[in-house]
């Protein structure tokens, strides 16, 4: 790297120059085209409806808690007001944004990664109190590195073992925390 006095020689910089953006506007455009697809009308409708349902549930439960009166508000008054706000705003959102989500992102095939990641987290929560943190953590690291991160088998094995060992040394040996562990 040091020898490349003239930057034009390196392939990396050639690539950079090929995709060069000169003005902020062009750059913004490139970022825009890089950005994931917008969520779209279905996601918009679904999220609004979920919120309306959420708001209704909130209203019903608040009423059951006893609203009281404005002079002497009881436990249910405030959640009642907030639930109403959620409901009203959700309906406004439903109408105003009906053209279809200008924000949010569409789910892609990569969204599976997030779901798998979430599953490993849940697994960690379930397994940790039963068999300690070491094995579930090792599994989590390995899955995240090998499949979610496309590391090689070798580096995934190496690094995930290393990570768990270091965590063990920090949290169990060093800090003496009471995180469930087998060893």
């Amino acid at each position, binding site marked *: 790297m040091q020898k490349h006095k003239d930057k034009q020689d390196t392939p990396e910089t050639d*690539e950079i120059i090929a995709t060069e953006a000169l003005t902020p506007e062009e750059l913004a455009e490139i970022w825009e085209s890089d950005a994931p697809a917008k969520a779209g009308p279905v996601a918009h409708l679904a999220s609004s409806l979920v919120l309306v349902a*959420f708001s209704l549930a909130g209203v019903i439960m608040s009423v059951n808690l006893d609203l009281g009166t404005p002079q002497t508000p009881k436990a249910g008054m405030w959640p009642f007001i907030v639930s109403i706000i959620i409901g009203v705003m959700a309906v406004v959102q439903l109408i*105003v944004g009906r053209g279809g989500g200008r924000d949010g992102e569409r789910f892609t095939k990569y969204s599976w990664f997030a779901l798998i990641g979430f599953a490993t987290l849940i697994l960690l929560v379930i397994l940790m109190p039963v068999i300690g*943190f070491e094995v579930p953590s090792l599994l989590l690291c390995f899955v995240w*590195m090998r499949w*979610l*991160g496309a590391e090689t088998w070798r580096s995934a094995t190496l*690094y995930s073992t290393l990570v768990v060992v270091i965590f063990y040394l920090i949290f169990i040996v060093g800090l003496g925390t009471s995180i469930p562990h087998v060893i």
Partner: protein
Amino acid sequence: MDFFAPVLDGFGTVMDPTNLLYCLVGVVIGMLVGVLPGLGPAATIAILLPLTYGIEPVTAIIMLAGIFYGAQYGGTITSVLLRLPGEASSVVTVFDGYVMAKQGRAGTALGIAAIGSFAGATVSIIGLTFLAPLVASFALDFGPPEYAALALLGILLVATISGASKIKAIIAAAVGLLLATVGRDIFTGAERFTFGNLSMADGIDFAPLAMGLFGIGEILYNLEDRHRAVSAPIKVKRVWPSGKDIKQAAPAMGRGSLLGFFLGILPGGGATISSLVSYAVEKKVAKDPSRFGKGAIEGVAGPETANNAAATSSFIPLLTLGIPANGTMAIIFGALLIQGITPGPQLIGNDPELFWGVVNSMYIGNILLLLMAIPLVGVFIRILRIRAAILAPITVLITMLGAYTIRNSIFDVFLVVVFGALGYVMKKFGFEPGPLVLAFVLGSLLESNLRRSLLVLEGDLGGFFTRPISASLLIVFVIVALWPMLKSFIDKRKTNTLAVQVETEKEKV
């Protein structure tokens, strides 16, 4: 002399070796997360919340503050060298910074950014030193109606100024308010929304909520956004800014400092907006605006100064009024609450050591950052080589195990995961987690002050308008609430035809 005695005592607090150490730790971590794209300062501070349980409040906040303003420095590095903004507040730095780097002036750009950041922060700290006690003394005789109005206004401003969709931000904030009501009602003792779960009786803890929404949520989100190739960073030649460069950039720094300072105080303002506004201002006042985007040094100096000034001054509303101005401040607010300290007008009087300790630590932190920023660029660039695939599980494990250590409770870890999923889903559907966390933090303050006000005013909501301060705050509230609707209506009429044109153009392509 009365005024300066506690200020000077504050330096004593900072000079305590432990505090110095944590200040250093904070700014180094801040700089690292600034360099690494993906995890922002809010997420990092949230993830590190468990660490603050075991240390003194002053020390904890000094460290967290260091992470926050340190990230502003770090974000610059990737903007200039990789055209990849590490932080949202460094996006505009890319425009001229990267071009400067290509012209072989990377060192100049980074140097100016560091000097500007330092200048902005210093101006802002001095402003904070004088303004904060003033604001606090003004707020000392606030009653419940004023607090309720202030909290309402704060939440609304954050929801409407930042983020893409205002309606969605308000919904997120309302959900945060609702989540804050979970647990025993402090007035009547009734259990609300606990569903008979004992772990929920004391309410949802702040730490798991913030760690989930900001930390895990962001990590899960990044999992699917990792297939982006990173180009090799431009080599930094050791070119320091010359006297001429500094002279050319100085006016921009001056404007950036003032702009950032004032925008940072406003709720919902903060670093990102200040940098955008500063860039626009610099372009406007320049004799030859066409230089911008082609390596104008003011285009780096102004925004970088402004974002640091804003990051610093956004502590003012938090420490004097107890109203966090943005998502990151909301987490620091939560961290203070965890420590048993309620930020508000009484803080300066009751806990001068904490207040001035934190404020003065920023001088030290910024000096440390200035010293590190340029010589260590190479080191930070090397950090970028660590693959996200290896970093992600490490951050996840830190979060999960950290959450457990707070109360040795697996339920807390479970909550972190649940809120993590919520944070991910919110992002996918275009809801910002920031307003939710902010509203959650202010929720119980808002509710209790509202109910107290209703008791005092005997249920008469008009009473809010008979008190001058609460009345003006509420009038501002109404204006802020209605303005976007008015504005979008006007804009729509103006741009409707234009938008149609653009759309058809796009379809052709």
